Structures are given as structure tokens and as C-alpha cells.
């Protein structure tokens, strides 16, 4: 058990390192680009083209001609030291921006995930134990429909219906809980639907298994069988889907935060990309990737706690 946690942590760190290398490479791949962008931001404006002498001057002044490896290590070191450079767009330290924009994203994604998990599990179990009834068909149709809808369109439609036509929720913004309602649904609907579907399939598979018949033979009341035996066994495949859902949730937050003017990391990333603020982009991406890897790490450990039979390959 402890050995598994150790192995898995090692894997997490390894993947994190490779991800950071990959991100850094992609962002800084075009030679001269960082200097060019900086030059444009500082002196010219994004639309203008920068003369080569200016680029060289900027590169010299800001030490951008150093070997990439050196710049990479400085960046990584920055995570531990707390200095990730200054954002070109905002002229503020990146760490300060991240600290500012991270909490709203956490609020949004955590609440959306909670909503998706709780609703998804309940609907999945309900649909499975009432297989082939009206409720089951309704749930199945709604979920496959939800899974096919693009999250940004759900957001737009929710705004159209509830903010513009009905007027019960605000259109966009951040402040009191009522601003959270629409973004939460828009973000969480897709995940809720996939969790429902996989929980339903998993429950149906589990209920067929011989140990379920034996539990009935033991004379256990149906409710106890459902909760202690069926749900626990059915939960395993769902955990993996929850991990993957979180990934699409994080990715979706980029769009949803932009649509609802929610001041989170996703919106920050979008603005950084539009402005080609490379310094901000690389750190933001790595933070998002880190969150994704952490969630999957926790899920893997949880999986192993529930079912120690699985050996990590």
C-alpha cells in the first residue's frame, strides 16, 4: 500500500517534469519570439512589426539570449522561490496574478465537480435499479443529449433563457453566490451526464455478478445490499471517469470563465493567449496541468484504497 503511494508519487513528479519541459519547449520554441513579443508590448503595440534591432536590444536587456536550458531551470526554480517573472500584459508578478485568479477557479471547478458527482451518482443508481422504466429512458436520453452539447453553447443558452428572457440570474460577473449558478451548471452538466452514464452501466454490470445473488441468499435487506455491496463495487470504473471529467472541467473552465467574466485562471489564460504574453502563458498552463495531475493522483490512490487488487503497472 505504502509502496504503491510511493510509486505513484514518483510517477506524478516524473510526469510533472516532462510536462513542464514540453510546455516550456512549445512556448519558447520559436527563436526570438519572446524578445519580439516583449518588444511589441513595451514599445510598439501588438499590431506593429518590430524592427530586428529593437528585438536584439530587448533580448540583450532582458537576458533573453541565454541558452534555453538555463532559462528553463530558472523558470522551474521560480516555482519554488516564488518568482515567476512579470507578466508582459499586466506588468505584475506572475505569482501575484496566479494567487489572485486561482481561488475563483477553485470555487467554480470544485462546486461544479461536486454537483456533477453527487447528481451523477444518484441518477446513475436510480436509472440502474429502475432499468427500462420511464425514468431510465428519460435519464438515458437526457444524458446522451447533455454529453453532446458544447459547454459554451449550454452557457449561452442558459444566459439566454434565465438571464435575458426570465431575468432571474445575472448575466455575468463574480460576487455573491447567485453569480455561481449559471457557470456551475454550464460547466458541470457535461461531466454529470458522463458520470451518470458510466455509473448506470457499472451498476447494471455489478448487479449481475454472482456475489449479488449470494448477498440476496444471505437474506440481507435490499437496501443494505445496494449500498454496502453494489455501490462500492460499481464505483471503481466511475472513479476513472471522474478523473477524466475533471480534466475536461478544467479545460472547460477556460471557455466558461470567459463567457461569464468569471475572474479565474481559465480567463487569465485566454487573455494571456490573446496578448501572446508568453511568460504568463507558460506558468498558467503548468498550474492547470498540475491541478489535473493532482486530481488524477488522488483518484488513483482512492482506487487503490478501495480495491487493493490492482497493481500499478
Amino acid at each position, binding site marked *: 500500500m505504502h509502496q504503491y503511494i510511493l510509486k505513484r508519487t514518483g510517477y506524478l513528479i516524473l510526469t510533472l517534469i516532462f510536462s513542464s519541459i514540453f510546455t516550456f519547449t512549445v512556448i519558447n520554441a520559436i527563436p526570438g519570439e519572446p524578445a519580439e513579443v516583449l518588444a511589441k508590448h513595451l514599445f510598439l503595440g501588438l499590431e506593429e512589426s518590430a524592427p530586428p534591432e529593437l528585438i536584439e536590444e530587448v533580448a540583450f536587456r532582458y537576458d533573453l539570449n541565454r541558452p534555453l536550458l538555463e532559462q528553463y531551470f530558472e523558470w522551474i526554480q521560480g516555482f519554488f522561490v516564488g518568482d515567476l517573472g512579470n507578466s508582459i500584459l499586466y506588468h505584475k508578478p506572475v505569482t501575484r496574478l496566479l494567487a489572485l485568479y486561482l481561488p475563483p477557479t477553485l470555487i467554480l471547478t470544485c462546486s461544479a465537480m461536486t454537483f456533477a458527482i453527487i447528481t451523477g451518482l444518484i441518477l446513475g443508481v436510480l436509472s440502474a435499479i429502475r432499468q427500462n422504466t420511464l425514468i431510465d429512458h428519460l435519464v438515458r*436520453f437526457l444524458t446522451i443529449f447533455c454529453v453532446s452539447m458544447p459547454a459554451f453553447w449550454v452557457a449561452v443558452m442558459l444566459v439566454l433563457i434565465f438571464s435575458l428572457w426570465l431575468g432571474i440570474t445575472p448575466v455575468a460577473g463574480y460576487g455573491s453566490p447567485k453569480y455561481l449558478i449559471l457557470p456551475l451548471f454550464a460547466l458541470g452538466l457535461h461531466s454529470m451526464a458522463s458520470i451518470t452514464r458510466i455509473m448506470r452501466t457499472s451498476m447494471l454490470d455489478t448487479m449481475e455478478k454472482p456475489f449479488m445473488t449470494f448477498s440476496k441468499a444471505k437474506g440481507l435487506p435490499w437496501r443494505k445490499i445496494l449500498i454496502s455491496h453494489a455501490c462500492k463495487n460499481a464505483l471503481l470504473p466511475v472513479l476513472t471517469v471522474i478523473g477524466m471529467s475533471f480534466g475536461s472541467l478544467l479545460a472547460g473552465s477556460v471557455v466558461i470563465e470567459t463567457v461569464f467574466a468569471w475572474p479565474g485562471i481559465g480567463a487569465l489564460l485566454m487573455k494571456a493567449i490573446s496578448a501572446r504574453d508568453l511568460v504568463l502563458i507558460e506558468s498558467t498552463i503548468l498550474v*492547470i496541468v498540475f491541478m489535473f*495531475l493532482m486530481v488524477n493522483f488522488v483518484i488513483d490512490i482512492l482506487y487503490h484504497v478501495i480495491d487493493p487488487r490492482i497493481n500499478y503497472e
Partner: protein
Amino acid sequence: MSETVHIAILRGLSISWEKYDWYHRLKERRDLQIVFVCIIIVFVLSLCAPLLTGQNPNSQDLRGKNQGPSLDHLLGTDYLGRDLFARVMYGLQTSLGIAGTTILISFVIGVSIGSLSGYLGGWVDNCIARIIDLFLAFPSIILALALMLLMGSGILNMIMMLTIVQWASFARLIRGQVLSEKNQDYVLSSRAAGLPGWWIVTKHILPNCIMPVIVLATMDIGHTILTISTLSFLGIGIPPAIPEWGSMINSGLPYMRIAPFNVIIPGLMITCVTLLFNIAGEGLRDITNPLADNEGSL
């Protein structure tokens, strides 16, 4: 042509499908038959877009902007007076074209790399597996955004970038399948007989385990269409001149109140096409997997 050849061709054409399990399962599933026919219709529609609508999707008419449905414009016009119906039809072409090409290419690349890795084993497999994991460690939109930054916009770039995002899931799936098939008796006896590796893989192993990957590919066409529309909604990737459902919704946003069709219709189209592929994918899985219930997605 001699009579024998003639008869042989006719016999060859009238292949008996009855011996296949999937044929019987498909016969039971009316809903799947409808879905598969719909997909064919959708593909045909996307090819014939120019024929279906007389209107040019790009001709602007600023005086007739943001109109509702009329005889001239079946679904109304957008903020530049362009015909919505025409744009939606051309958008189908764009989406299906990019998604289809992406899935095709990433399928070939992913399956090749994944099966190679699985079959060869050893340190090569370990390396490639780690690379696959690396690509899968990034949520797809984030990876897409980062790559788009690098490559710039344009349809070709978009296809390349989506392929890079997509290949890893195919590779991982096929690798897992190949790894378990590798130790089956028929493979061991083929190797003992001295057959070359590539022959064993392509002629024996792959046909046995390709089906789940095809199922994944079908469902991923829908997923890719979602990604494409999300990216174009954000203003990334597709040049604004080309009609694409996501960017249409984006440009319709400021006029949502007066011309809601511009945001409702494209989104509905995205949903319906993705729905078709999702149901088709799950249906394929039901008919080809002998262990699965044949009960349907709805």
C-alpha cells in the same frame, strides 16, 4: 469475361452477412439502423452544401441584418446580413471535414505507434508508453491552445494540431489490446512458425482488436467537433471568413436578444451531429462486443 468469372463476381458480391454476429444484433436495433442512415445522410449533405442553398454564405447585406426567418432566408440572417441557413450548411462542411480528416490521420498514426509499441515491448514500449502518458496528461483544450499559439491559425494547422492532441488516446487503447493479445496462443504459434512480426500484427492481431478503437474513433469524431467549435468560439484556429458553428455563435452573442436564432441554431446543429456520432459509437460497441447487452443508448 467468361461465364465462370461472371458468376464468381456475382457470388462474391452477394456475401452472406448472416454468419456475422454483428449483423443479427444490428437487425434487432431499429434505432441504430436509423442512426447509421442519418450519418450517411449528414456526410452526403456536407458534400452537397453548395447545391442545397442558393445563397452565398459570405455575401453581406447590412440593411437586412439580424432578420428572422423569411422566404429568402430560411433561418434568417446574421449581424452582417449573411444567410444563416447557408452558413450553417457550409459550417457542416467545415466541421465534418476537419473532424473527419483529423480522426482519420490520428487513427492511422495512433494505431501504428500503439501497436508497434505493444508488440515490440521492452524499453521501446516503455518509452513510447511514457510519451503517450505525457500527451494524455494535458487536458485537450489546454494542449490545443498551447499548440495553436505555436502554429498560428488556419485550417491545415488546426488539423495538424488536433491530430497531435488526438493520436495518444488511440495509441493507448490499441497498445493495451496488443499487449494482451500478444500472449495468446495463436500469436505464439505464428512466431514459432517464423512469420515476420509485421505480418503477425497486421494480419492477425490487429483485426482482432481493432473494433474498440473504431468505436472510440466514432465517438471521438463528435468530441472533435465539440473541440473545433469551442476553439472557434474563442476565436482561435479558423479564419473568421470561413463559416464555422462556434464562431457563428460568438459573433451572434452581442445580438442575442434581438436575433436569438444566430446562437440557437448553430449550437443545435453541433449537438445533433455530435449526438449522432455518440449514439453510433455506443451502438457499434453494442453490436460488436459479444459480451455487451444490446439495449441501446436511449
